[in-house]
């Protein structure tokens, strides 16, 4: 572990810990409106650490809820993309030949599409719900994973233990999922840390446009959107969630980059 990893990992853990513990300590909750205290600037008294929003709701609790939602969406979306990417890449790499060529050609085709617009289309067509957001974000982030897993699988399938499994009559599906997939763990874990910030980006983008997480639930993207509307009088409503989102993304990217450099010398850059 190098210093960059330690620092960015530490900041991340800190933010996440405060996000889950902070609201428990606060006397306020994320729904409670207080029309006597609209748009109060941040203060220590009365535990209004981040001030209040235009409905008199406590911004600290709402920001922490936003971090929780953002992190949860990102993790679930990354798991979805992990499952699709690993299955697709491993099958393509293991079968090889013409199947591999066709499957990878399909990935190349998808790469060229502006996916985010399809996600927006999906959000328009179906009622916006949490689950759909997870799945949609996961569904657009699996392409890189599939490529990397395929590359690894190509070399794994020549190894003796795979050959041994094949000789003893293990089925193809079982070889792919029980013998090859577990050996991909190292590479996959590195790329998952790089997928998480991408998922956060997509989720907050959708929420910012009003197409993602809906009120009274919130996420950092939705909070930034609310802050934009109030920025002339209440700049903290924009700056605090914006800074939190930027810090989280920056730390994940630093951590992922450092991890790739440490474990995966073949990576680009």
């Amino acid at each position, binding site marked *: 572990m190098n210093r960059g990893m330690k620092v960015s990992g530490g900041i991340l853990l800190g933010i996440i810990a405060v996000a889950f513990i902070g609201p428990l300590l606060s006397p306020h909750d994320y729904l409670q409106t207080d029309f006597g205290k609209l748009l109060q600037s941040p203060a220590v008294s009365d535990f209004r650490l981040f001030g209040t929003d235009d409905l008199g709701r406590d911004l600290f609790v709402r920001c922490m809820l936003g971090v929780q939602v953002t992190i949860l969406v990102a993790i679930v979306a990354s798991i979805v993309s992990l499952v699709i990417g690993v299955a697709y890449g491993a099958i393509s790499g293991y079968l090889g030949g013409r199947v591999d060529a066709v499957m990878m050609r399909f990935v190349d085709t998808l790469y060229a599409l502006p996916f985010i617009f399809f996600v*927006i289309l999906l959000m328009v067509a179906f009622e916006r719900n949490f689950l759909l957001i997870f799945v949609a974000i996961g569904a657009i982030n699996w392409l890189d994973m599939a490529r990397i897993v395929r590359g690894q699988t190509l070399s794994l399938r020549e190894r003796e233990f795979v050959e041994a499994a094949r000789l003893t009559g293990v089925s193809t599906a079982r070889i792919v999922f029980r013998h090859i997939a577990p050996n991909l763990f190292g590479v996959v874990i590195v790329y998952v840390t790089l997928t998480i910030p991408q998922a956060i980006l997509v989720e907050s983008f959708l929420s910012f446009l009003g197409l993602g997480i809906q009120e009274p639930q919130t996420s950092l993207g939705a909070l930034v959107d609310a802050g934009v509307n109030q920025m002339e009088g209440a700049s903290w409503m924009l*700056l605090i969630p914006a800074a939190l989102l930027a810090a989280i993304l920056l730390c994940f990217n630093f951590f992922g980059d450092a991890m790739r450099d440490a474990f995966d010398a073949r990576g680009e850059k």
Partner: protein
Amino acid sequence: MLRYALKRLLGAIPTLLLVIVLAFLMVHAAPGGPFDDERVLPPETRQALEAAYNLDAPLHQQFLDYLSNLVRGDMGPSYRYRDHTVGELIGNAFPVSLKLGGMAMLLAIVVGVTAGTVAALRRNTWLDRTVMGFAMTGISVPVFVIAPVLVLLLAVKMQWLPAGWSGNEGLSRFVLPVIALALPQVAYIARLTRASMIDVLASDFIRTARAQGLGTSAIVRYHALKPAMLPVLSYMGPAIAAILTGSVVVEEIFGIPGLGQFFVRGALNRDYTLVLGIVIFYATLVVLLNLVVDLLYGVIDPRIRRR
């Protein structure tokens, strides 16, 4: 070269068809019809409406009709902007977005390549570290965070630049949107340029040039820049897609009447034909621009064409 171009153009057709089928199916798989949230309609009116918008035909027939109209450039009427066709709306809104995106792309390439080259030449100095630190920040921080913070600092607090679009004329209203849109791409391009420039500067032909007594600036300009641009060129495809995505946010924040704003409005209003039309338009644009990038790649690096 011409054969190569034609081959690539034909290769783009299945991709576009896939886009159209996917987008069409997604919109038509939506539960409920486009007129569901209006007041309860008498059955006759409803039938007349559905007939007018060709919604009473079977799905495959609707698709074939849509496709044949699309080929002729007709994307049907908008469900919400009743007096306009989708084609008209796109035609009116796109020039603004094109101007915005074009300026952002130009700025990103010029600044990104310059910053990346400087960082590569001053490798491992404070200058390099500063540029790369900014680049990491630019990659991580999304457009919808950069744009409002820029507005807050430069327009609301300092009052140097206009914050909005309407009521302002000339170039000044372009400054903030273009910077916000370009910054993430500046960051990516600077990182790519730095990495490939370092590679190129370490190669033999550069050593030869140096041995002949050429100065650093001449080496960079005449020898290193062109090969170092290849990774940047292949990033142009994703960059175009990212600028399109970013323009949606930037147009929303600054109130610019471009295609992105229509897209978001259409999405929030459930204007199915408009959203469908814009997605197909965007996808076509991205696919075609990718094609142009690929062809340029062949021009700069002749080895590609022989594959």
